[in-house]
């Protein structure tokens, strides 16, 4: 279920209550990280590729408006209709408009985190329009009325028994099915009907090429293509940062994407769309929804380089043990934690703190986003903007005072140690969060300084 305003720490605590399931979730995602490691170590020039990708994206952001204009021009010349949406609301209305104009009632959608971000499905539901998510993981969570917990592996939080039960309850299939092959076959049959009768297919965009006006959609299942090549209308939705300058830049990004995401050398299908097929309408919606705001922030604009591979999720020890739903955003994990505060600081003030700043995420990021440094920087911004608890601010000011005045520091240290020694229960109790599952450190006879004065001076 969607945790709208439950803070990460509380949601995570709840998640961990089922420890065996947490272990399973952690191991499953670590397994994906290991697959990634195996794949990237086969590419001796891997770090060079990352550097190129990073620099291409840095350049793109610095020339973004011109590339978008170039893209629009070329796309339109090829017969693609280009729309611009300032925010989620506008994105959704543009789609509704196209639906109404064309009298569409049957819609399929392949994976698009942007449409999740815009809550497109809910919007269409409110307007009594049926839309079916066709990526297997996304379809499963749709049936369960949940949101995806991972941007590449939407149903990673579910066990095969959960899937079997979901199908049984929603499709009337046999109870107790757990074989992934059987379950996938059920999905294939059911969704094939949807593809064949769909009037509109909505996809995301992995990369949009300024030079040619085309765009690329990468899938393993073939669901994007089954949708768009059968439906008479194709709407592709993209955040404006998906633009890359040149066609041949795809060589860099397509070498990095699947290896980072799942450890595959490439996804099964990398579809390059330039012109609609004869008789088909092709639309692309270029969306802002807060991105131009992020672009204005020198410390955080790098987060717009993201190619949505989720490598950072898989490596993050915190994500693996708390699950995507704990992040209460369409995009969870480390990258989600530096994107979300830009959208709403108050609601997302907890996310940059859901991290030990270990730095693993920045190392796996194929476009070298300095994720862990941005997490630290967001903490500064959020606290300066007053989104922390006032007790925290007071506590920190007190700490700073203690550490500024050596005599006070020594006194407080000595008192602390004395209390711990003589009145341990006053510290070692259930009010002390440290003490919940850990012993307090033992109290030494002397502090280092005291020893130094006795023995060295």
């Amino acid at each position, binding site marked *: 279920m969607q945790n709208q305003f439950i803070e990460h720490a509380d949601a995570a605590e709840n998640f961990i209550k089922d420890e065996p399931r947490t272990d399973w979730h952690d191991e499953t995602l670590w397994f994906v990280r290991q697959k990634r490691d195996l794949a990237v170590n086969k590419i001796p020039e891997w770090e060079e590729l990352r550097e190129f990708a990073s620099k291409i994206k840095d350049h793109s952001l610095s020339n973004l408006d011109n590339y978008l204009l170039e893209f629009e021009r070329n796309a339109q010349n090829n017969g693609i209709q280009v729309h611009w949406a*300032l925010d989620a609301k506008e994105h959704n209305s543009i789609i509704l408009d196209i639906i109404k104009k064309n009298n569409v009632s049957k819609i399929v959608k392949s994976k698009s985190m942007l449409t999740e971000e815009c809550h497109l499905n809910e919007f269409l539901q409110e307007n009594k329009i049926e839309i079916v998510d066709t990526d297997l993981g996304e379809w499963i969570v749709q049936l369960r009325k949940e949101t995806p917990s991972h941007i590449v592996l939407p149903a990673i939080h579910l066990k095969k028994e959960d899937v079997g039960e979901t199908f049984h309850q929603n499709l009337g299939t046999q109870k107790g099915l757990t074989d992934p092959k059987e379950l996938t076959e059920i999905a294939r049959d059911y969704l094939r009907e949807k593809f064949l009768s769909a009037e509109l297919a909505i996809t995301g965009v992995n990369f949009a090429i300024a030079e040619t006006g085309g765009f690329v959609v990468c899938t393993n299942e073939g669901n994007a293509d089954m949708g768009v090549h059968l439906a008479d209308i194709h709407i592709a939705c993209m955040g404006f940062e998906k633009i890359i300058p040149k066609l041949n830049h795809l*060589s860099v990004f397509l070498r990095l994407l699947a290896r980072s995401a799942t450890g595959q050398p490439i996804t099964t299908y990398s579809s390059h769309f*330039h012109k609609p097929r004869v008789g088909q309408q092709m639309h692309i919606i270029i969306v802002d929804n807060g991105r131009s705001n992020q672009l204005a922030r020198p410390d955080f604009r790098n987060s717009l380089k993201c190619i949505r591979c989720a490598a950072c999720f898989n490596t993050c020890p915190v994500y693996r043990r708390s699950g995507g739903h704990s992040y209460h955003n369409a995009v969870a994990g480390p990258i989600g934690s530096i994107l979300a505060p830009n959208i709403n600081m108050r609601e997302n003030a907890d996310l940059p703190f859901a991290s030990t700043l270990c730095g693993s995420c920045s190392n796996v990021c194929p476009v070298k986003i300095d994720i862990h440094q941005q997490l630290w920087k967001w903490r500064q911004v959020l606290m300066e903007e007053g989104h922390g608890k006032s007790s925290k601010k007071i506590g920190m000011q007190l700490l700073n005072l203690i550490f500024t005045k050596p005599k006070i520091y020594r006194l407080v240290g000595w008192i602390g140690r004395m209390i711990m020694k003589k009145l341990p229960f006053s510290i070692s109790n259930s009010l002390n969060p440290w003490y919940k599952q850990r012993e307090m450190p033992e109290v030494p006879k002397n502090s280092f300084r005291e020893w130094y004065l006795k023995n060295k001076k």
Partner: protein
Amino acid sequence: MNSREKILNAIGQNKPSLVALPEVKIAYAENINLTSRFSEILTGIGGNTIIVKNYLEIKSNIQEKFGTYHRIVNQVDEVEIKNEDSLELKKPYQLEDIDLAIIKGRFGVAENGSVWVEDSDISHRVLPFICQHLIIIINEENIVSNMHDAYRFLETTSFKNLQNSSFGVFIAGPSKTADIEQSLVIGAHGARSLIVYIIKNKF
């Protein structure tokens, strides 16, 4: 100001100062047999490769493997298996029950076992996805090493002078998913199997 203008204005105002575009240069040291590498990778991702001398061999191989299949569609003239009459006039959804599709690929990429398929080589874009089983035929001399070479090739062919291909796709193996507990299942929504026939170099 409409949304387009608002967005472009905001980007214009907020973007960082211009940073140079790097020239992508990847040095290559590996001296490998491209056909072997291609086969190795494609097999590893669930596909099959069969090296043949000529189209005749392909024809007999297909008949052996798929002879009993109900609806076979052949889009490669050199393979003497009859294609359906007026297939190109059919609507995409009418390809629904195609068991086997035989199509041409422009080139293969050794580093990831993928084959580039061009819109203009197939009667319908949906064909390679909607069929139950897929066969793609390529020439051995058209196997390139990596994606950098692949796009160089594309820039001189499908995308020459930016006369864009209208639709093209890298196909790497049969469709698959691991969405259920990371258990790999071959055959999701696209083809359940893929065979790439590689016609050997004459020399």
